[in-house]
């Protein structure tokens, strides 16, 4: 294990995870909203916002899939030491972290079952750019319409067509965070 794995976590877990959760709750209940989510200093290539989401949500009961360049020893060691989450393949994952291209095809991830739609994966998508522009969003949490720079539109339209099944998505860029639950209707730019 690399020594870096032991640094960059929460200094005051109860308070920092409470504030981190409220940031995640805000972006998933108001799709298109972008908030600052500081507090974690994970090793590259994991972004601070993705690190925060991991510290708030992951533990020994949440299988995690690391995709592409995120599947490196620095990130594996950090997540294992900080959260204890087991690392698994895409199909069994409750959470997945990676760039959009590495996570694709996203049809590999759990979408829940008709009886238990909550048993679906949450994707944490690392992006280079996160802005309130691009794809048009409607649905729960949005007063009229919102816009968010999505890496792709077709996959999210296909995901919405599965509702109430489907995966949920968090987008991270540095220490900024946005969300797109499966309930959001995505239209072209």
């Amino acid at each position, binding site marked *: 294990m690399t020594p870096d794995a032991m640094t960059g976590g929460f200094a005051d877990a109860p308070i920092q995870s409470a504030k981190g959760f409220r940031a995640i709750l805000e972006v*998933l*209940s108001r799709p298109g909203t972008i908030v600052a989510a500081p507090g974690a200093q994970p090793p590259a290539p994991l972004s601070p916002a993705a690190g925060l989401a991991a510290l708030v949500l992951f533990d020994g009961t949440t299988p995690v899939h690391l995709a592409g360049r995120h599947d490196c020893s620095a990130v594996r060691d950090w997540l294992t030491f900080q959260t204890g989450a087991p690392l698994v393949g895409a199909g069994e994952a409750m959470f997945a972290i990676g760039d959009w291209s590495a996570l694709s095809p996203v049809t590999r991830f759990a979408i829940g079952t008709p009886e238990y739609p909550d048993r679906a994966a949450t994707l944490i998508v690392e992006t280079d750019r996160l802005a309130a522009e691009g794809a048009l969003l409607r649905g729960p949490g949005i007063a009229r319409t919102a816009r968010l720079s999505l890496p792709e539109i077709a996959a999210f339209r296909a995901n919405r067509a599965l509702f*109430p099944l489907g995966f949920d998505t968090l987008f991270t860029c540095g220490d900024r965070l946005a969300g797109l*639950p499966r309930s959001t209707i995505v239209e072209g730019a």
Partner: protein
Amino acid sequence: MSNHYNFAYLDEQTKRMIRRAILKGVAVPGYQVPFASREMPMPYGWGTGGVQVTAACLTPEDRLKVIDQGADDTTNAVSIRKFFQRTAEVAVTEHTAEATVIQTRHRIPERPLTAGQILVYQVPIPEPLRFLEPRETETRRMHALEDYGLMHVKLYEDIARNGAIATSYAYPVKVEGRYVMDPSPIPKFDNPKLSGTPALQLFGAGREQRIYAIPPFTEVISLDFEDYPFEATKAPHACDLCGDGGSYLDEVITDDAGGRMFVCSDTDHCASRQAAGHRGRLSPQEDAA
């Protein structure tokens, strides 16, 4: 004085589990997410589900309001407010406008909620179909298949027996055109406020181990029939203390000779109106001299 509890009472592992359930609830509006409800230091029926949801949401910067049937000063509300003052050291308020998190038992405040607020409901029986179909395996399948005919039969039987839909509280709603949901035993007067509010609404059922949510600006329709449309009813009176003709009222028996008065169930709403100079039928006549 040092606090001997973890922040907001629950341990971090438990809060993570509840937080994950809340997020899935937000992603699938109206669907009841199972969660591993914990024993709380209060009996079931006192809001153990709501308390766990509130504990998972609170931050030290929050200002908490707790109401029981609209009142800030009843036993249930006072004890839960004190619980979080002691275990989370959060600021508290009785004013709806000042609160960032409001835990409620069976009412939605009269004052419209705003974007920065979270309303946490205490829910006794989260399954709207439970009294029609006691088996969890069956109700789960009915939700999966969107098979809600039985609920309409129930409302129809109301009309056949009573001439109107007699359900007056815990009136079933359909969320975003998909899940039929129990809004907790709020009076149906409050049902229209569920829909399109800028606030986030979270529901916690402790004994039944379910969490569900209505995100902001979500369409919530009270079930009805074209020829028997939904009606948000209340006692046909004005408040006897603040004179408001539009708020939800409690009936208070005042003697054993048929005397009674009607007062706002929302104590903050009523007190604010009285402070602003509004007077009702039974208000003290201060300018008599």
